[in-house]
């Protein structure tokens, strides 16, 4: 029995096999990346140790941030190198086959869907837009309570007013973000809304209020960048990331 498995990174046109782009590229287990070609399609793969990348081992490691980050960044590096030059359909992290035959079978069995997916991302790239609501400055100089107020009542009133003000602003910023998303989506062939990221992960004081990926062609990307720049204001701060390989737009069987 073989002591290695095959880690699948991405699927692209057969032309990738003749490309220089994968020279000197190593995969998640420090083995050189290569391609497997079946008809018009190529799979980008690299060998991994069967034990280190067993189901159980991966499951255990998913909670090990160091491992997770290393694998994620290496996977991304491989995909990204190709995406700069070729249309590519990245495969979800940690998709593993026992041997080359399994990957070749996949390329044959799902050739039509895979080709359609590649066609959808051809000439396009993914850009991320994240929106943050700027923190609300609490009014330092609160009006002095009038003599007639019971001290407790006036404190509670001020607290309530302040809370309402913050809530209204949050609502307003969220509405603006939603409108902008609708507008950005018009520039894109497709869009995908991601869950908002936890502030503990973003490391930012602002609350995230928008997290969307857009699939755009070159003109769309330029227009998107321009609109994001123009729409960034005091209350809503927008950030553009990309270009990304089209990770968010390669689900099979979707239009």
């Amino acid at each position, binding site marked *: 029995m073989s002591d290695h498995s095959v880690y699948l990174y991405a699927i692209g046109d057969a032309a990738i096999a003749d490309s220089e782009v994968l020279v000197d590229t190593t995969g998640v287990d420090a083995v050189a990346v290569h391609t497997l070609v079946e008809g018009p399609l190529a799979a980008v793969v690299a060998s991994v140790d069967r034990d280190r990348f067993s189901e159980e081992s991966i499951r255990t490691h998913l909670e090990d941030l160091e491992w997770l980050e290393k694998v994620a960044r290496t996977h991304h590096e491989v995909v990204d190198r190709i995406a700069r030059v070729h249309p590519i359909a990245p*495969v979800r992290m940690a*998709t593993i086959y026992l041997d080359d035959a399994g990957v070749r079978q996949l390329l044959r069995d799902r050739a039509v869907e895979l080709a359609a997916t590649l066609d959808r991302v051809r000439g396009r790239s993914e850009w991320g837009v994240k929106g943050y609501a700027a923190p609300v400055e609490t009014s330092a100089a609160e009006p002095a309570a009038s003599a007639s107020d019971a001290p407790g009542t006036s404190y509670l009133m001020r607290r309530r007013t302040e809370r309402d003000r913050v809530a209204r602003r949050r609502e307003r910023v969220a509405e603006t973000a939603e409108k902008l998303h609708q507008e950005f989506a018009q520039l894109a062939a497709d869009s995908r809304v991601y869950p908002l990221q936890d502030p503990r992960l973003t490391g930012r004081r602002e609350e995230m209020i928008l997290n969307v990926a857009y699939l755009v062609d070159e003109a769309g990307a330029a227009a998107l960048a321009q609109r994001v720049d123009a729409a960034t204001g005091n209350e809503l701060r927008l950030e553009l990331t990309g*270009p990304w390989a089209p990770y968010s737009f390669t689900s099979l069987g979707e239009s």
Partner: protein
Amino acid sequence: MTYATSRADDVALVDLLDRLLAGGVVITGDLTISLADVDLVHISLRALISSVEKLLEQ
């Protein structure tokens, strides 16, 4: 299209995990590491959060 910015090293891990764990072509490999989307994202986020908290405690 220019690829001058936002290359591998600059990419925020949390943005990368959004994409690598919930995006990409989903194929059942021979090793069915059933990466139930949401579960996996939660697992990874939990790992991230706990490691961030550990850093803060130090």
